[in-house]
């Protein structure tokens, strides 16, 4: 458990804490910061917020996909979807553990999620209306997550970086199973192909928004870059995703729903039209199509599971007490 010695703090002549300079020197030297090391309070706060948000996104992300487990069209698809959703649950757990090393309890994080104080990725507030949405989530949403997560494997905070390494190993399966589904639909009957296109039409822009506000608008970016929590800006990551994804859509005969989309011959980058940031803000602040459903489902799971957690704890206490009793002759 991290404790900070705030007493007998030796300040430098200019009033700054000399430990802060040493901390920054370690960051600059690409050293990893570990739970019991000194860290500025703002660094800890930024990490707790980011890691908890990330964990919540994994957990809430299970809901739109879980919606289709019982209706998967084949056993092969069903097994893959079950395994993927189980992975997402695991990702949430790795991340909660990483946040806990910063002194925040699991219970407090769960409470903040259900009472709306904590945020999660805006993408999971969109509904999964057809089976094609499940393929689209794997291809686009997990694809965008991979772009975001690979640089986080080199994040300056050790436990977060290690959690991300495990997660990234598992994400590739998620994206590939999704793309394979969409490929199959796109090569199917006209109705199936239309279903794939309709899903792309609905998921494209929300996926683009997953990278967060533009660099000029992003409130946390600069500090996070200096602390090496973040390695690339939102816009840089977004561009990487667009450049990787547009050819994948074209390869299977799908159309990106953006009339302004064009390849810039000089830079080799795909240029997109304007992003509707009003929609992003609306969905993030709670007014998306499924925000209320997601929180209600999470809340029900937490409340309905409470008696199980209590019973397990009571059982463990009883067994401990019994083991401590002297054995009767």
């Amino acid at each position: 458990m991290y404790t900070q010695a705030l007493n007998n703090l030796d300040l430098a002549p200019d009033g700054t804490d000399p430990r802060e300079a040493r901390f920054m020197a370690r960051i600059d030297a690409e050293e990893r910061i570990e739970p019991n090391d000194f860290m500025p309070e703002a660094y800890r706060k930024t990490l707790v917020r980011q890691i908890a948000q990330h964990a919540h996104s994994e957990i809430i992300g299970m809901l739109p996909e879980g919606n289709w487990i019982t209706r998967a069209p084949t056993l092969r698809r069903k097994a893959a979807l079950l395994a993927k959703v189980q992975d997402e649950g695991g990702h949430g757990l790795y991340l909660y553990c990483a946040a806990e090393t910063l002194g925040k309890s699991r219970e407090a994080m769960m409470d903040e999620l259900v009472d709306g104080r904590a945020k999660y990725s805006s993408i999971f507030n969109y509904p999964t209306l057809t089976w094609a949405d499940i393929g689209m989530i794997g291809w686009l949403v997990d694809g965008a997550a991979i772009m975001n997560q690979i640089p986080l494997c080199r994040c300056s905070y050790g436990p977060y970086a290690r959690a991300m390494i495990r997660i990234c190993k598992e994400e590739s399966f998620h994206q590939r199973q999704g793309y394979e589904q969409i490929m199959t639909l796109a090569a199917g009957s006209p109705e199936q192909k239309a279903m794939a296109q309709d899903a792309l039409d609905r998921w494209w822009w929300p996926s683009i928004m997953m990278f967060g506000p533009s660099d000029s608008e992003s409130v946390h970016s600069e500090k996070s870059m200096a602390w090496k929590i973040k390695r690339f800006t939102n816009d840089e990551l977004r561009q990487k995703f667009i450049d990787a994804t547009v050819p994948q859509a074209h390869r299977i005969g799908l159309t990106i729903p953006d009339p302004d989309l064009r390849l810039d011959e000089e830079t080799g980058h795909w240029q997109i039209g304007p992003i509707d940031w009003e929609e992003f803000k609306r969905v993030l602040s709670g007014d998306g199509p499924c925000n209320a459903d997601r929180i209600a489902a999470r809340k029900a799971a937490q409340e309905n599971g409470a008696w199980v957690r209590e019973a397990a704890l009571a059982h463990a206490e009883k067994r401990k007490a019994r083991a401590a009793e002297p054995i009767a002759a």
Partner: protein
Amino acid sequence: MSGLTPLWEVFIRTRNGMAHRHVGSVHAADAALALQAARDVYTRRGEGLSIWVVPSNAITASDPADKDELFEPATSKAYRHPSFYDIPDDIENM
């Protein structure tokens, strides 16, 4: 009862004969449930053949503040390493 589910550290031994290695942690009411959770969370793709779970509060860790006095002496003692000793190139098998 505190109402908080205890934390356990998870160690896994991989199939290639390495020692148990720390992989992360889980919350569980008791050791049996911790093992079950560790199996679900950390071994979904053949990561290992054996799991240890240890109550997190049973671990005593070195203090980062003591890093220099604990570990610096090891780096200043170069004579502990074979490369410290000059042996002519034509001496073989050493």
